[in-house]
């Protein structure tokens, strides 16, 4: 009995020790360093960046990290112009962008993009064909696809959004989006709109889905981060950090930090799937 207890105690101790090592170690990379890191770009990245910055700046107050949103386009532009050190994008860079600014990309997480509808909507499953029809403006009432008799109101994202780009390429296969579709500037605004409008259809990053909206299955695929990670949900994108040329030592440490187990934990807590290096 005592023996058993002692083993348990030892295991516990060992576990806490390794845990604390795992916790302490990645941040140690920042000791003795100082300087500023400015980050801008994709709005989906902000929670991850914020949490990482919080931990780093708490451990080492000599480092200042500022985080701005703005969207993937802003990320590319600002890092390219040298206004920030890290520009985040929710999509892979275009060749033109890489060529113009000499950017280097560091993917660090996977995010799924899912169709969302109002929770009061009876529709539980959609097919890609139906979604194309809806967004092209050919299907205009929920009763045409087995729902209640209510006009469909379309919501889409702005031209600079990485979420929109993934949706447009992977789900719509570059099909038409009706010009009468409402355009909202962010994931949160999309959620507010869809949560309030019983006839709404929109799309958000899976990390943003909560009880206020409903995500119907897509061609039989259930949109969840697990499924996005194991490949059974295919409307996904990677989240990238981009630097102009090779990153400086401090920026490099920041990027590496997000790829450590502690970084992975932050990414998971923000609702994304960490990308194993």
């Amino acid at each position, binding site marked *: 009995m005592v023996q058993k207890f002692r083993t348990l105690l030892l295991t516990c101790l060992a576990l806490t020790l390794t845990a604390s090592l795992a916790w302490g170690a990645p941040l140690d990379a920042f000791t003795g360093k100082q300087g500023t890191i400015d980050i801008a770009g994709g709005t989906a990245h902000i929670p991850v960046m914020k949490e990482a910055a919080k931990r780093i700046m708490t451990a080492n107050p000599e480092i200042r990290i500022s985080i701005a949103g*703005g*969207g*993937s*386009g*802003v990320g*590319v*532009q600002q890092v*390219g112009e040298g206004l920030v050190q890290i520009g985040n994008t929710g999509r892979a860079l*275009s060749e*033109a*962008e890489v060529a*113009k600014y000499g950017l280097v990309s560091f993917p660090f997480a996977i995010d799924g993009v899912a169709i969302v509808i109002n929770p009061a909507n009876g529709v539980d499953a959609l097919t890609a064909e139906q979604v194309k029809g809806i967004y092209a403006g050919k299907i205009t009432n929920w009763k045409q696809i087995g729902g209640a008799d209510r*006009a469909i*109101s379309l*919501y889409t994202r*702005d*031209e*600079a*959004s990485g979420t929109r780009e993934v949706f*447009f390429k992977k789900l719509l296969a*570059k099909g038409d989006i009706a*010009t*009468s*579709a*409402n*355009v*909202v*500037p962010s994931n949160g*605004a999309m959620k*507010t*709109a869809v949560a*309030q*409008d019983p*006839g*709404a259809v929109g799309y958000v990053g899976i990390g943003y889905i909560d009880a206020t909206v409903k995500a119907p299955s897509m061609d039989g695929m259930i949109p969840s981060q697990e499924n996005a990670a194991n490949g059974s949900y295919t409307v996904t994108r990677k989240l990238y950090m981009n630097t102009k040329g090779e990153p400086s030592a401090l920026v490099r440490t920041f990027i590496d930090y997000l790829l450590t187990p502690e970084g992975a934990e932050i990414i998971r807590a923000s609702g994304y799937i960490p990308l194993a290096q």
Partner: protein
Amino acid sequence: MSVRESRIASLVLGASAIIVALAVLAVFAFLFKFALPVFTGGQGACILSGVWNPFKGQFGILPMLAASLCISLSALLIGWPLALGLCCCMHGFTPRPLGRFLSILLRGMTAFPTVVYGFAAIFLLVPVMREALGHGSGLNWATAALILSLVTLPTMTLVMDAGMHQTERRLRLTGAALGLNRQQVFSHLVLPACRSDLLAAAALGFARALGDTLIPLMLAGNAPQWPTAASDSIRTLTAHIGLVLATDSSSATYGSLFVAGCLLLLANMCVQLMLRTHLRTRGAA
């Protein structure tokens, strides 16, 4: 000593006038400078066309211009009569305490941040509009125009009120001599006499409504289509700037942003010029 002081004073004052003038020039020069390459680069015709579909290479921002004008004009149509009415209330058509309360309320409203109106309207007005119009999403021309009229209301009312206050003071004795009471003085003497103030208030309200970004961005729906009905989701030039600022800086989408800025400036200049010519011709006559 005093001569020197006054010399310095006029120098300083002149200098500040020059600073202001330079600032105005700089704003205009920079925007036109950044808009010019768009036209010389051959994208001009494309941007000044009627269809916005960047994925098919169509970058027309004329629908946005139309939307901007429609929204601000309709906001003016709702807000201006209301402002006039409130002004009448404050000048003797209602009991004094109510008038005082109104004036305090209006001054408080000037301190209301725009973003607060937008934030609250999303949760308050949008669902109401959706049900009232029976279709659409509630993010539309009518919603944005209503809130914009509310935003511009205090500014317009206060400008009118300031003008009327002066005029009323000047005409009070005349009115009394004619044996008119306060209401009669107001409607027969003061109102006609301060037409230019009413116009200036309208111009100011129009400029505010035209220039507001957050209200249309949050409430008008931002669909790049021509406005045809009050329940249409439309995108104004200002919202357009906010939305496309984040795009790739080498694309025509990005170029359209500076053209949009210039169009806004031009629209404003037109309003100012119209106001000025009107006042001048009236003044001459």
